């Protein structure tokens, strides 16, 4: 097998690091660190987008790289850090499943995602198609992170990381979505974040905590 060109090697490195970051998000229990990991994920995504942009010469990818940098590396993490300080939530409670168990489930998910991606990437014609499996794995791992967390804050961070995975998947399958869609998604994420910020305060007002299992009971009195 001939060695890949250097920029593809770098892209594969970025993809592998994204996968590693997903796993560290899965095991991280401090919410501040979780947000930092999200920012790092955004930075890697930005680097990967730039690499693809340089390789394919598509102008709109540069724009989406800048958008990623502004929104996912700087904007949202700053917003989240402010929310953490205002709401005074620093730790998530014990996860639903213990750490090693979550990791093992995560590994199975990665195997599943790679199997799922194999036929799809066989059909794609982009040079970056082999990273599609990693994108799907990142999305599913973010799902798992959301499922295993109790606090609303970490679920939202996992939700944002899922959006990162979707973005990466679109890039590896088709060199990114059309610009209009991308702008729309970016705006959606920003608005969703603002709405969820308001939600946090409402939830805390009602239950004195951001623990979501309070929402599971229908009546106020047991």
């Amino acid at each position, binding site marked *: 097998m001939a*060695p890949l060109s250097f920029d593809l090697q770098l892209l*594969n*490195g970025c993809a*592998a690091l994204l996968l590693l970051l997903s796993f560290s998000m899965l095991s991280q229990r401090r919410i501040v660190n979780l947000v930092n990991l999200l920012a790092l994920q955004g930075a890697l995504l930005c680097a990967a987008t730039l690499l693809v942009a340089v390789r394919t010469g598509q102008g709109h990818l540069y724009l989406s790289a800048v958008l990623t940098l502004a929104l996912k590396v700087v904007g949202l993490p700053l917003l989240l850090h402010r929310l953490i300080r205002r709401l005074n939530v620093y730790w998530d409670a014990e996860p639903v499943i213990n750490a090693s168990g979550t990791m093992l489930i995560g*590994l199975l998910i990665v195997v599943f995602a790679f199997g799922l991606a194999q036929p799809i990437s066989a059909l794609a014609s982009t040079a970056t198609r*082999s990273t599609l499996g990693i994108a799907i794995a990142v999305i599913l791992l973010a799902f798992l992170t959301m499922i295993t967390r109790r606090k609303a804050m970490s679920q939202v961070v996992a939700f944002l990381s899922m959006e990162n995975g979707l973005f990466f998947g679109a890039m590896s399958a088709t060199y990114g979505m059309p610009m209009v869609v991308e702008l729309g998604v970016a705006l959606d994420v920003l608005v969703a974040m603002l709405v969820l910020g308001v939600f946090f305060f409402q939830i805390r007002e009602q239950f004195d905590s951001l623990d979501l299992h309070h929402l599971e009971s229908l009546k106020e009195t047991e």
Partner: protein
Amino acid sequence: MTPLRIVTQLLEIAAALIAAPAFLGWVNQCRAWLQNRRAPSVLQPYYGLRKLFGKDVILAENASALFRFAPYAVFGTMVAAAAIIPSMGTGLPLSTAADAIALVGLLATARVFVSLAAMDVGTAFGTLGARREMMVGFLAEPALLMVLFVAAMISHTTSLPLIAEGLTTRALALYPSLAFTAVAFTLVLLAENARIPVDNPATHLELTMIHEAMLLEYSGRHLAMMEWAAALKLFNYACIGFALFIPWGTGTEAGGPAALMLAAPLLALKLAVAGAGLAVVETLSAKLRVFRAPEFLATAFLLAVLGLLVYLLLGA
């Protein structure tokens, strides 16, 4: 079998026997410097060995033959392991006898003997140490095997010298899978050699000790053999790491005697850097509670499996 191969083989075993205590001494010296203590000499482990060889052996009353035999068995397996790890040259005649998987088996044999001997006398500390050693071992072994599998898949062989040779001669490329497994291997090395996040090598009587607890009943030349074997184990692990992740400079058979001459100082350089790195890692990290050790090793296993999966997906 050419004379060069025999010379390489003998040189490797001799180098391992001689350099292992010095490597341990170097790690200890770096640790002392980093902790602002006055450092012992690099040669300190040799002084310790000479002292112990000069002393009489004191045996517990109910010690069986296994207890007396274990130090030689452990030392023997470590020397055998050193013989098949390509530390300086890849043309090793003995390496056809055992591949990387058999090497893991050799290391496991040593562990079984140490643990059985520790339980033989029947003291509480020995049994405690043996059980903990087995716990660490059974978690570290799959991770180590996964690390070796990734390297074996990249170079299409399980023979360690051929893996090292394959990795040296192929075109330079980024291997995310090897980067993952390198981290996993470092974690396994720390756990298996009783280094700090899992066990503290500098302590002698502490409730959380693992390796030292198993050697408490040993004395004299038996203890010397055990300590020499522990130094050899650390040296062997370091050399496995070099063979898998930084194999450049290892003398290939085609290189002839000149390559072998060049490999010796390079090995010394690699050992010096790795020893200093090990000391830094040990100084920066705090010792884990014993019950956190499984989590530590689960991380190693996870990284190794991720490396394997990433290799399967990306082919790099």
